[in-house]
């Protein structure tokens, strides 16, 4: 099965392998900077959440590094294309190394699937290369025969450290 184009689901209920392929494909699209296709993997009511606190439970009354709906994510993607986006002149590049995603829960009746993926993420710009270690939790569901991300949660191992710019997506 190719990771490059999106494979249609064979059944209404995705197999574990289909969930895993989906998560791996998401990382690949980010690495290849195919951000429009990447955005398309998110449901319209999706959130991308990067907590600021270890084991954070509340994204509303506790600050996060990111807690973005699809509008904000699409603004980020548009901004990356901008002629006057000076912090991206020259552009950043990134690289994901994933452990095999684990399917933590599957509930076909509720149309809800959760995977957990340990990963290393490297972002570079100019002469700087920065390594981040994180766990990604994907909450997925099937919409019109396609898997979609409802929530992606990225927990950095050092979520409360002082960072420089983190410009792309983990």
């Amino acid at each position, binding site marked *: 099965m190719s990771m490059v184009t999106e494979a249609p689901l064979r059944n209404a209920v995705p197999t574990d392998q289909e969930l895993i392929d989906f998560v791996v494909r998401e990382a690949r699209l980010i690495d290849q900077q195919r951000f429009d296709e990447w955005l398309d993997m998110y449901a319209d009511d999706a959130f991308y959440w990067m907590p600021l606190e270890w084991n954070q439970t509340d994204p509303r*009354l*506790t600050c996060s590094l990111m807690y973005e709906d699809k509008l904000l994510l699409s*603004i980020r993607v548009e*901004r990356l294309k901008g002629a*006057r986006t000076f*912090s991206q002149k020259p552009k950043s590049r990134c690289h994901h190394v994933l452990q095999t995603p684990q399917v933590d829960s599957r509930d076909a009746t509720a149309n809800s699937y959760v995977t957990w993926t340990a990963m290393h993420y490297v972002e570079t710009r100019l002469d700087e290369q920065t390594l981040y270690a994180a766990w990604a939790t994907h909450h997925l569901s099937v919409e019109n025969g396609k898997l979609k991300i409802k929530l992606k949660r990225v927990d950095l191992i050092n979520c409360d450290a*002082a*960072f*420089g710019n983190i410009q792309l997506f983990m």
Partner: protein
Amino acid sequence: MTRYAGNAAALRALVRDQEVHRDVYVSEEVFQLEMEHMFPNSWVYVGHDSQVPNAGDYFGTTIGTQPVLLVRHTDGTVKVLHNRCPHKGTRITSETCGNTGKFFRCPYHAWSFKTDGSLLAIPLKKGYENTGFEQSHAATGMAPVRHIRNYRGFVFAKINDGGLDFEEFFGESLSSFDNMVDRSPVGQLKVAGGVLRYMHNCNWKMLVENQTDTCHPMVAHESSAGTVVEVWKKAPPGTRKPMAVEIIAPFMSPYEFFENMGIRIWDNGHGHTGVHHSIHSDYSAVPGYFDKMKAAYGEERAKAILDENRHNTVYFPNIMIKGPIQLLRHFKPIAANKTLVESWTFQLVDAPDMLLERTLMYNRLINAPTSIVGHDDLEMYERAQEGLHSNGNEWVNLQRLYSPDEAEQTNVAVNGTSEWPMRHQFRAWSKFMTMGM
């Protein structure tokens, strides 16, 4: 090579009426002198007393680069102690904040100290008999910072004995704290939501100056705020404006908006943008909030409090607050070319949660290392930090709307795009840098 140590004239010569020498940003020697003179001569923000509500609670931070502890003493007062064991210098606390109980205990040889710093006990005390220990510096315990002041919850400290007293140093500028605190129906703030920490490879003063730089948003933030405005234009007509758009879009306001909003200048480097209106003026009303304010203050006073929409208030040397959004940014110097930016948020006690939600969203969208608006600014600071090494021109220009008689004036409101506040910050810098030299 030392050029500036003990040389007040050379330091003063770095600041001219309309320009400053690049050494104020790039020289490690000047940075060291700031730590030895400028910060200890100034009233520097330490923390908020809600971070240490109970006896024994402590919070570790820095005054310049010196580690200090904010601690709640057993008698209920707040103390600031140098975070250093009088024995061999070991930092006393292992966590940034926590509760130490009735005393601090050094993890190295177990000397212990009361929460006001005084020495409580030493193991094997006999070993110090007949050594003249009572006369030693160590016998006095952890050194307290003697000059501290808790202003409506905000704790400031001054390390040196000389210099100005608290009221002289801040004067009328304290009205910005008043407004932020008065926004709570019970007149009380609480640190809430977690602190964002953002590392900047640039001089701390670049951040301070930027707080009153109103000619950069529509240029530097075209990438972030400009994109928000463009993407939002494509939303179907009648869509409710999201809180995020309300927060980011005003950064793209035109020059006239910033010119007309005005800047106020106070003594000693303090001042604020947004005399008449600001990027915070047009936020949607939060349900139930005004009623609470009205009940607490009466309608007229409640209106007056909420109509004050100061944008950025700079407290020299290194904090900025935003009253209307209950946020404080602390620019912590680490080296001439390195600054830690901490962004703290506050909850208005007894106000609806939605206000805190907005505060946290603002902090996340503007001040986070993952924030696109923050990326725009940091890129410019880091480019400046590099560009200043060019010998093409050793001076940084701060001339916009300069007037020859401005140094003598205080508490004036001027054109919102003036660089007067930056000139004013450097006059204060020069004064506190060379005070007593």
